[in-house]
């Protein structure tokens, strides 16, 4: 108690000297919060966009090899039973038909090759598509219609607007060219690797267009209530499916699945894949983001440590008589050292409180800024904004790091203060 009072007294007595240090420290913590929050938001946006692009957090994929190769699911009822048996807590279950690489949209003589054309069950996925930023039009009335949702990149290439008639060309599963006349119902803003050359149409329409039988589709997607359980859920789902359906050996990435597709089999065989299994292409990106963030954090922590160290070094020099007196009236070396460290720690806690307020205010402003002029940045945005995302663990980790840096900076001055000889200190200025 006495130590705390002495600490508070030390700070309040010299508040003018502390004010700049506190300001710097608060801003430093606010900046760390800003960086961590924005990075969290960017990663969340990437994952959300990826989940929307692929249609879930966890997937069941069916493949047939003969008489011709095609991705197809025919046992919808059996998949639902397996999902129930596995005890997986799903928020949404979706059926999708994906057509990769060879789709083209034509309008007025212009063409745009699509990386993916996806057939969507709009009734099931409406809520998930609410996160998509639309430039014009919308996805109301898409279910059961010949509407198509194209990206702003595709719309620009084609010179197409909402309401225009376009032609969608795909190959059937047996390799025949097929076309359909479509109406542009909506144009979405997404220049990222997921969305720039993606278009969305009605599930039944695309399934029919590529030659699947009624009720057949290519991907069974599961949005989990808690995506953090995806690895465990994937194992449970695989085991449940394996009890009633022919399965490929377990795979953890899309590349591993491609290897399995080189095997020989008959009928439809199934695989379970997680969203992470699809995301090897953006894992490098998020890893680079993390590396950049850690580098910045490290830099901030070094600056804070050096700042605290320098300030306290000067303070210890100025307060040498005070420490000498303390020592002369019986305070032990450890006591002086603890006093300095407690002052620094208290300062750190106060600055974390102030920094939290400033940091969240900055996050609110930065997260809501519309970002439109950075090419290829759409992958990190949600409705054109960065947004922000914090887990309590990340906040506590940031706070602990700051306090650690403050304590580290105060260590050497504290050691110096504790080493003051009372007689020499009191003789000084005498």
């Amino acid at each position, binding site marked *: 108690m006495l130590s705390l009072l002495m600490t508070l007294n030390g700070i309040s007595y010299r508040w003018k000297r502390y004010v700049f240090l506190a300001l710097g420290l608060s801003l430093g913590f606010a900046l760390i919060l800003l960086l961590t929050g924005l990075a969290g938001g960017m990663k969340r946006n990437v994952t959300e966009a990826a989940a929307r692009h692929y249609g879930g957090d966890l997937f069941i994929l069916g493949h047939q090899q003969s008489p011709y190769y095609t991705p197809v699911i025919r046992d919808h009822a059996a998949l639902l039973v397996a999902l129930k048996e596995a005890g997986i807590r799903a928020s949404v279950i979706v059926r999708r038909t994906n057509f990769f690489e060879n789709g083209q949209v034509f309008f007025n*003589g212009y063409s745009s090759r699509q990386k993916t054309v996806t057939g969507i069950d709009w009734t099931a996925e409406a809520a998930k598509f609410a996160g998509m930023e639309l430039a014009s039009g919308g996805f109301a009335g898409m279910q059961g219609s010949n509407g198509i949702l194209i990206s702003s990149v595709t719309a620009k290439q084609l010179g197409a607007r909402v309401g225009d008639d376009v032609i969608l*060309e795909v190959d059937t599963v*047996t*390799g*025949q*060219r*097929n*076309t359909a*006349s479509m109406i542009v119902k909506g144009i979405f803003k997404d220049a990222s690797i997921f969305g720039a050359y993606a278009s969305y149409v009605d599930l039944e329409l695309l399934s029919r267009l590529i030659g699947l039988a009624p009720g057949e589709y290519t991907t069974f997607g599961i949005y989990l209530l808690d995506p953090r359980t995806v690895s465990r859920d994937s194992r449970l789902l695989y085991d449940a499916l394996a009890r009633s359906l022919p399965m490929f050996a377990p795979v953890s990435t899309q590349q591993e699945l491609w290897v399995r597709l080189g095997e020989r089999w008959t009928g439809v065989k199934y695989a379970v894949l997680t969203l992470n299994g699809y995301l090897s292409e953006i894992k490098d990106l998020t890893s680079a983001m993390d590396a950049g963030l850690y580098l910045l954090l490290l830099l901030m922590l070094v600056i804070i440590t050096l700042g605290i160290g320098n300030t306290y070094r000067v303070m210890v020099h100025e307060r040498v008589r005070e420490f000498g007196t303390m020592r002369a009236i019986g305070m032990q070396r450890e006591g002086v050292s603890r006093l300095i460290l407690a002052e620094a720690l208290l300062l750190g806690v106060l600055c974390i409180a102030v920094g939290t307020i400033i940091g969240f205010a900055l996050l609110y402003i930065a997260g809501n800024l519309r970002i439109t002029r950075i090419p290829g940045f759409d992958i990190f945005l949600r409705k054109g904004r960065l947004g922000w995302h914090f887990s309590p663990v990340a906040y506590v980790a940031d706070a602990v790091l700051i306090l650690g840096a403050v304590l580290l900076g105060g260590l050497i001055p504290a050691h110096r203060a504790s080493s003051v000889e009372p007689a020499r200190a009191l003789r000084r200025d005498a």
Partner: protein
Amino acid sequence: MRQLALIAGLLILSSLLWAQADSKDLLQKVDSLVSFPDSDFSAEYTFVENKPGEGVDSTQAAIFRRDSENKYLILILAPEGDRGKGYLKIGDNLWFYDPVPRKYVFTSSRDRFRNSNARNSDFTESSFASDYDIEKAGQEELGKFDCTVLELKANSNEVTFPFTKLWISDDSLVRKSENYSLSGQLLRTVLIPTYQGIGNRFVPRTIVIVDQLKGKEVNGKFVGDRTQITISKPSLAKLPDNLFTNAYLEKVSR
């Protein structure tokens, strides 16, 4: 009266069957005149792509075919930047080779040849008779040619163009064809105004392929992207066996 109706019906039916058989014979003749099952075939192809408003692009390639084994090799000769790239087809497998990274990419006969209006399948032997059934036959004038017009429907679901319409001149050579998608959308028109004889077979001298979906509005009218293919130096001389191998493609691409 009933007997008369029956006889008339039988006459109509037999004439239809006869016409059908006759048309099928015609298709087989069309195929046989431009295929080389008994010999190898090689020639130089020049592709000139004309995209309205975007200028002209030219590619030169040497093509080597062995129809009897369902093989072909296409070697790009020009432009300089693409020299050495090539396609190798063996059976149902088709690879594209790029000599810079020295990599093969598995590709499809259905894909466009170098993003032109030609398909990789356009370089294989003609197989109208085996791929299609005749839906309708008629007569039509096409410029200076009196043509038999056949409307064809693919008899398997693996034929790239499910519907095709052919204009065949009196000499059993295809002068024009239209390729349609499964839903009946016209995708491209192919014109073959002139042929050159080689042995007892024929090779087009020029082929014009007009895309019906890609192009530009010119003076209020849609003008499709055009690819003109000129075929020169055709030969039926025997080709070495090792020509249809990856090793050969890699060697000549260096």
